[in-house]
């Protein structure tokens, strides 16, 4: 019989040489990471990383080559479908989580999009969290030079500093750069790859422990009132908070307009929204670039805080534009549907 419990898929990314494989190798030796299917992507025709990862007997490693983000629509989806089929048939370990280690050159956004949009996968898999490794020795320079490394940091739920034994401590400039790119992602440290597995992958929208949606954890530590940027940083994170419920049509128009006008510059958006038509059940929204996951409806608010909180991570998207766009669309919806004005006007 096919087990239809959603299987979380976590993504481990980070630039070339930042220590992803070392961290993964450590994780797979932990008891709580048994029954894990791992997909390792390597750039180049001959893969080595999968040989370097020693998995327990209850876990196993699949290898794909080529640039995962370029071929992701087909290769990753097919690999995941094949894993699920073999699991259902009993021809492989009955894994209860999947970890994807991207190549160091991969843009993680298309990978996340595939996990969110492939209809065949969406009913079986749920996006877990995204962890990004950053080399404490070379990380600052890499972030300065390599756009893709900035994106890897920007979409992370957790950032893992590696090679601290070589660097002694992360440079102030590196920490400031990480904060400017993604202030909401807690910074963790890996000691020769050793890191708590719960710490690393506990920040996903889906909580494997409770088999529920952990919104508070997902949005934890996001600065809710400020944008974070530096004068030279193109990628910024900002949080939009609204006290009053948002009409459903206003939210839809807002998201469509963001996606239409920002395209690939909209790296990631996540939020919990108080919908005016249904204020007792918050909607959880999640988008990567122009692709948005269908809202997930929670049974109840996870805390007494019923404000809508939307976190936007983008490249050169002015915070003020996002705010005014939401407010203007809300005001127009008030004009057209006067009954909704009670819920929106005055924020």
């Amino acid at each position: 019989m096919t087990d239809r419990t959603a299987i979380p898929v976590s993504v481990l990314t980070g630039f070339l040489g930042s220590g992803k494989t070392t961290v993964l190798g450590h994780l797979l030796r932990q008891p709580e990471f048994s029954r894990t299917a791992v997909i390792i992507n390597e750039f180049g025709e001959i893969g080595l990383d999968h040989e370097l990862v020693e998995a327990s007997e209850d876990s196993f490693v699949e290898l794909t080559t080529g640039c995962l983000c370029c071929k992701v629509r087909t290769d990753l989806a097919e690999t995941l479908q094949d894993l699920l089929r073999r699991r259902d048939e009993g021809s492989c370990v009955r894994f209860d989580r999947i970890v994807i280690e991207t190549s160091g050159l991969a843009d993680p956004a298309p990978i996340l999009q595939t996990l969110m949009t492939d209809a065949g996968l969406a009913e079986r898999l749920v996006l877990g969290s995204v962890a990004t490794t950053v080399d404490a020795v070379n990380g600052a320079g890499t972030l300065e030079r390599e756009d893709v490394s900035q994106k890897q940091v920007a979409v992370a739920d957790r950032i893992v500093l590696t090679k601290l034994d070589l660097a002694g401590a992360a440079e102030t400039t590196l920490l400031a750069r990480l904060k400017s790119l993604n202030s909401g992602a807690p910074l963790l440290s890996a000691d020769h790859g050793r890191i708590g597995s719960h710490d690393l992958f506990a920040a996903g929208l889906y909580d494997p422990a409770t088999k529920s949606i952990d919104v508070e954890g997902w949005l934890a530590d996001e600065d809710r009132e400020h944008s974070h940027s530096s004068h030279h940083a193109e990628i910024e994170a900002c949080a939009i908070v609204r006290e009053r419920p948002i009409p459903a049509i206003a939210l839809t128009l807002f998201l469509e307009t963001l996606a239409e006008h920002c395209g690939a510059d909209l790296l990631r958006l996540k939020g919990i929204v108080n919908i005016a038509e249904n204020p007792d059940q918050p909607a959880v929204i999640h988008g990567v670039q122009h692709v948005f996951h269908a809202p997930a409806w929670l049974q109840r608010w996870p805390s007494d805080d019923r404000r809508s909180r939307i976190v936007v991570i983008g490249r050169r998207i002015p915070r003020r534009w996002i705010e005014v766009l939401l407010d203007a669309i809300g005001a127009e919806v008030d004009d057209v549907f006067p009954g909704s004005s009670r819920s929106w006007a005055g924020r």
Partner: protein
Amino acid sequence: MPGDLVRELLVESLAAWRVAGDVEHATDGSIILRANQRSIRVERAPAGSMFRWMVTIDDRKRPAISLVAILRQLREAIDPGYPAKRVRVTVAPLVPP
């Protein structure tokens, strides 16, 4: 809805699109946007119209059903690099069943 909010939306939209220009209120209550050597007038549609807005670009007046439609028309007019594309965010119900 407040005209100042619409004006601010257009100002901030120019910044978001990284297009140089300016936006001002005209004496008749309409809003004039100038960018890329074009002058564009945005005004409320006449009472009784099925549209909410009228957008005049190069003497051609076109209706717009919403602010979202205005933004699309403006950007197509002043940002040559804008790949006009329509996106569909979700086919899921907007409210839970």
